[in-house]
């Protein structure tokens, strides 16, 4: 029998689960021999309230040695599921940037929560006069949280999506009772693009034209995208996305947007990036929408609503 494993997803998109499938041919022995999956909504039919849904009360997840949780925490059901996973699993892995840092859904943390969610039900195609559903659906929390804001996490594997090789390494290390070997550097540290020095750049540009490169030549022949004047978050982003040598967005000839979260788990990608730009003499005001530099790491209170804009007429006219 393999090592019992339970999987859950919270405020998530299934991309992390697809990353697990992308482990490839190693996946089959992993799932059939090394692990024994006891609960995983995406692939197996274990239910919270009994297999016939008639055992009310508290939701139940079976005990497991390994627990893998993807997604952040944004409603009351997520909290309940996460706490049950923590109770039942010996080792709990936060998989993906939503679980480790809030991820894209934590962009909502920069909005005025309750009002913004209500506005989702007031778009151009939605019937007039409807309000936020509230019958039997889990109530929304005040914001989206990373897992470690709610429970103790044993291992963090960020990435949007996470790298299948790291998932396999983390599981294998657990099975072999050793520390997993995971990257610790920044995207820049692992990027093979050519750096020529600062080169008198004072502003960063939006990505509205393609970077300069020779398609016939490898990434190592292309000049660093920051040096080409594009906003690229490589300096302030944890490494780990590279699969074929270069960081994966750089492989696509597109600048990094920080999807593995900060280099140090508690780092602030927006502040770190502003510092990096300023120390190279680049005008921080040239960054359009700097708050979205926290688009993958807005949990832990980093992304907050802006002060309410003044709308409508005031008494003073």
């Amino acid at each position, binding site marked *: 029998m393999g090592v019992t494993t339970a999987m859950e997803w919270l405020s998530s998109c299934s991309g992390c689960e697809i*990353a697990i499938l992308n482990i490839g041919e190693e996946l*089959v022995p992993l799932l059939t021999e090394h692990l024994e999956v006891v609960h995983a909504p995406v692939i197996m039919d274990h239910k919270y309230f009994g297999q016939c849904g008639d055992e009310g009360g508290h939701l139940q997840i079976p005990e497991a040695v390994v627990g893998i949780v993807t997604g952040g925490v944004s409603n009351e059901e997520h909290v309940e599921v996460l706490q049950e996973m923590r109770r039942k699993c010996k080792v709990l892995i936060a998989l993906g940037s939503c679980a480790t840092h809030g991820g894209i859904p934590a962009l909502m943390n920069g909005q005025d929560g309750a009002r913004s*969610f209500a506005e989702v039900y007031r778009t151009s195609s939605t*019937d007039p006069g409807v309000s936020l*559903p509230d019958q039997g659906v889990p109530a*929304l929390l005040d914001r989206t949280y990373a897992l470690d804001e709610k429970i103790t996490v044993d291992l963090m594997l960020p990435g949007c999506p996470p790298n299948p090789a790291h998932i396999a390494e983390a599981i294998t290390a657990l099975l072999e009772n050793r520390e997993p070997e995971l990257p610790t550097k920044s995207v820049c540290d692992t990027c093979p693009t050519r750096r020529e020095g600062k080169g008198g750049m004072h502003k960063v540009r939006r990505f509205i034209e393609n970077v300069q490169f020779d398609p016939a030549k490898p990434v190592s022949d292309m000049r660093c995208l920051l040096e080409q004047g594009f906003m690229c978050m490589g300096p302030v982003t944890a490494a780990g996305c590279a699969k074929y040598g270069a960081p994966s967005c750089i492989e*696509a000839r597109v600048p990094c*947007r920080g999807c593995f979260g900060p280099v140090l788990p508690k780092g602030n990608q927006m502040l770190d990036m502003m510092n990096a730009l300023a120390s190279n003499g680049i005008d921080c005001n040239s960054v359009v929408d700097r708050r979205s530099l926290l688009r993958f790491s807005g949990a832990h209170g980093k992304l907050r609503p802006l002060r309410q804009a003044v709308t409508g007429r005031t008494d003073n006219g």
Partner: protein
Amino acid sequence: MAKVLQIQPVTRIEGHARISVHLNDSGNVENAYMSLMSLRGFEKFIEGRPAEEVPRIVSRICGICPWMHHTAGNKAVDGCFGVTPTPTGAKLRELLQVMAHINDKILHFFFLAAPDFVLGPDSDYSVRNVIGVVKAAPELAGRVVKMRQLGQMMIERFAGKAIHPVAAVTGGFSKPLPEAERRQMLKDSRTLLDFSLFALDFARNNVFNKYLEVIAELGAITTGFLGTVDREDGSLRLFDGKQRLMKPDGSCTDFEGDDYLDYLGEHVEPWGYGKMPYAKSWNEGFSLDLDDPRGIYRANTLARVNVCDKMGTPKAQEALEAFRSDFGRPAQATLLYHYARLIELVYACERTIELLEWDSITDTDVRAKVTPGAGRGVGVVEAPRGTLIHDYTTDADGCIESANLIVGTTHNIGPMNMSVKQAAAALIKDGVYDQGILNKVEMAVRAYDP
């Protein structure tokens, strides 16, 4: 005594849902609901973002079909900025979007749906899953895993990321396709086409023929359909074309994606976070009443093969002809979604090959000149789970002012509710139910691949 069965979580689907079956005092089904349990607010939190960044944010709506949101988002931003992608840029987007359909269909049919058919709907829950399939049919499973991986890696090697892509950009694509990679992709696509024909054959012999009765009855409802067809010849299109809305009687109205607000509305019930699109243009309101549904149409594979006049590729066309001679047009049986999915798998492989054989696919002019500014753009593609609509408005700086999204899965929330109710009422009588029966109710949902 009256009670409520909570089938939670609905499993082997791609999101968070719950089925509640309400039984009356005599143990018969009074009502049944399928509710979406999750809300993230993409329409709101992309406001203020520079529009060209949005296609790499909205991809996170779905990690299974990120290429769909990525390409629909890019089309919408093109519209906002008034840019037309270069011909090769547009074809590269289509190539990747259609290749992503291949993996999606393999994933759904073999990893998520197949356990119900290979192991049987009533088999124990602990083995009724992909791991059980691997153990019961190791050779088949090995081939499936290999083929899905091949499809994923084809995308990843060229575009850097298969999950949450970044390579489609405003005005086209971020990089050209080198000749050597084109040749490798062509070779891999032919392997996938062979597999898709095998998959269709396998399913015909081992699933559709074997479960004909279940297919005819389980979750059966009568609705209209929505899909995308070629503007000239009415053939099925996944990447672009005009929208076609079919009434249950088979009569059709075609319209341009830009005009979707004249045809579609979204209804909201207080018991689920998902909005339910309906055919506003039918002027009959919205109702999920099984005997008198109003405004209800379905999207996703069955809808697309119903609304199209033909398949644009030869093998898929053969398959469609066989399908239509058995089930007619429009085919209504819910489980036929699986059959239609495999016809589309064949089409996606054939279309990938066509695109790779297109003369200019390796041209280096992949991105048009882009100037951010104020405007509105509607981007429509067919996602595996249905017609996907991204509608953005930008301000003078080219940042998002407002957004409206109609996501593929949501078209079918209403119909899934109807299918669940139909299946539950047909299967649960006088308080008699077991895990196999409740799994069959879930199968009615799973067919829609939500």
